[in-house]
Structure formats: structure tokens, C-alpha cells
């Protein structure tokens, strides 16, 4: 009875959503979007503070924001304040996990109960390096290619996860992660405050932006993305550690 009621309710909601979206003339048809009418047109041309003309890869210098990846230019430049809030949300959730699962006193690993043979141990150590390098590459090239701090940080965390899976005895230094996370978070705020002091507003891009498409370009963006990558990586590694440890009493 309850299931039937929920079924009717959700089907009604779905039909209502589809028909109201179809009837709304302001909502565009799928694929039939005019970018020129949206604010994204300004982000694409990098001309929010006045018209700068078209951006050309490898030629335009000292653009308003020098990232070749336009998603990155929105995430860590135009809407960097949103990203600061998002990083805060992630910090609070990892704090909540630590509060719920952290046990005072001696902790022990959750044993996965299998004996790793020689190949597995050596192979996982080698793969750990490769995954870590990929994560660092993705973070450093966040302003040129797809990727950036969030997926790169998650890759670093998954390399740590591999070590946890391959060896029952393995424990990381959780305290080091906590320190790294808070240092990266505070440095992000300090970069924002430097923008306020050296330029005019919070989180402004105060370094020269260089040529679009160079590795050393886009001013403050790669620095902020490295900080975000370290923060996300250490936070998710801390969460994984809390899920894999248990108190002596439990």
C-alpha cells in the first residue's frame, strides 16, 4: 500500500516535471541553446571586465584569465569563492566522519584476511608510484587539459587506497594528513587575501597571466589548483583511513 502510494506520487512528480519543462518557453530544447544569450559567452571570450575580442590559443597574452581549459577558468577564477565554500563543505564532512568513527586510544586495522604474496606486494608498490604521478600530472595540467585539483586529489587518495588494500599491516600517518589539509586550506585563504591586498578584491588573479596554452601561465590558477588537490587528496585519504580502522572495544 505504502509502495503503491510512493509509486503514484513519484510518477506524478515526473510527469509534472516533464510537462512543465516542455510548456516553459524560457527552458531551451535539448541542444538548441544560444550561448550568446547567456553569461557564459563572457566567460568563453574572457571579457567579463570589458570586451577583449576573441582568445586565440598560443597567441593571446595577458588575457583577463590565462587558462586554456574554460571550465578551470570558471571553477578557480571567476567563481573561486564558490569553490572555497565547497572545500569548506568537504572539510566539515571529513570532520564529521572523524567524529563518528574516530576512537580514542589504541586503534587497530580492519583486517581484510588474506595473505599478500610477493608479486602483489611489489606490484602494488610500483602501481602506487604510477597512480600518484598521474594524479600529480592531472593537477599540474589542470589549466590546460581536462582534470584539475578535484580528480587529481581523488587519484592521490586512490593510490593510498591501493596500499591499504594490498597490505593488511599498512597504516598511514593520519596526523600528517590533518596537518597537510589544514595548511593547504589556510594557504587558499591566504592566496585570496593576497588578491585583496595586492589587487582590488578577494581571490583576484594578481599574477601576470602569460600566454594562453603555456604550462607557466594563468597566474594564480595552478597554485590554487595544487592547493585544492592536496586538500582533497588528504581529506579523502583521511576518510578512507577512518573507515578501515576500528577501536579495540568494537
Amino acid at each position: 500500500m505504502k509502495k503503491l502510494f510512493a509509486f503514484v506520487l513519484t510518477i506524478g512528480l515526473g510527469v509534472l516535471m516533464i510537462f512543465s519543462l516542455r510548456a516553459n518557453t524560457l527552458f531551451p530544447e535539448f541542444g538548441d541553446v544560444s550561448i550568446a544569450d547567456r553569461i557564459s559567452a563572457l566567460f568563453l571570450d574572457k571579457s567579463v571586465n570589458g570586451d577583449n575580442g576573441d582568445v586565440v590559443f598560443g597567441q593571446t597574452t595577458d588575457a583577463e584569465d590565462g587558462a586554456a581549459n574554460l571550465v578551470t577558468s570558471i571553477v578557480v577564477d571567476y567563481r573561486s569563492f564558490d569553490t572555497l565554500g565547497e572545500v569548506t563543505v568537504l572539510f566539515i564532512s571529513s570532520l564529521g566522519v572523524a567524529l563518528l568513527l574516530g576512537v580514542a586510544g589504541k586503534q587497530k586495522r580492519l583486517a581484510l584476511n588474506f595473505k599478500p604474496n610477493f608479486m602483489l606486494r611489489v606490484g602494488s608498490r610500483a602501481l602506487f608510484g604510477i597512480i600518484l604521478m598521474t594524479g600529480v600530472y592531472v593537477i599540474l595540467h589542470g589549466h590546460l587539459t581536462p582534470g584539475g585539483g578535484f580528480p587529481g586529489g581523488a587519484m592521490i587518495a586512490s593510490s593510498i587506497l591501493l596500499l591499504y588494500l594490498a597490505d593488511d599491516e599498512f597504516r598511514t600517518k593520519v596526523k600528517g594528513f590533518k596537518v597537510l589539509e589544514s595548511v593547504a586550506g589556510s594557504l587558499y585563504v591566504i592566496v585570496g587575501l593576497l588578491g585583496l591586498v595586492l589587487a582590488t578584491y578577494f581571490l583576484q588573479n594578481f599574477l601576470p597571466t602569460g600566454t594562453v596554452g603555456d604550462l607557466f601561465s594563468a597566474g594564480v590558477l595552478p597554485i590554487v589548483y595544487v592547493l585544492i588537490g592536496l586538500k582533497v587528496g588528504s581529506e579523502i585519504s583521511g576518510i578512507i583511513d577512518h573507515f578501515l580502522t576500528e577501536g579495540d572495544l568494537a
Partner: protein
Amino acid sequence: MMLLDIVSIVIGALLLIIAFVAIQSKDLIKSVLFLSGLSMLAVVSFVLLKAPDVALTEAVIGSGLVTALFIFTLLSVKKEGSKK
């Protein structure tokens, strides 16, 4: 253009079927694994919609880390159950 339409219809149907199985399945481990598959299909649909950044993030996080967290929770619970 026709090919893209056909692929998106197939992906949409698969998304709905796998989501239904993930929600209705009685076995918790199976449900979690179908959620991981749903994440992988979502990656394909992000690529079809020309969003490589989001596809990369979803591939690492949605089908890797979230599944690992679910499995760890279920594993630790199974341990305690066998002890009692």
C-alpha cells in the same frame, strides 16, 4: 548525428534499467556494484554531452572511491556479525 541519437537512447535505457536493479536488489553488495556500473554509464553520457572534466572526476570518484567506501562499511559489519 543519427549514431549519436541511437547511442544516447541505448545509454538512457541502460541507465534506467541499472538504476532500477540497484534500488530493487535485495542483496546489499549487488546493489552497491550496480551503483558502480551506473556511475560508469554516467561517465559515458558525460562524454556524449561534451564534458570531459566532469567525466574524469566521476570516473575516479563515482566508480572508484564511493564503491570502496560502501564495500568497507559492509565488510566491517560482516566481521562483527560473524563474531557474535
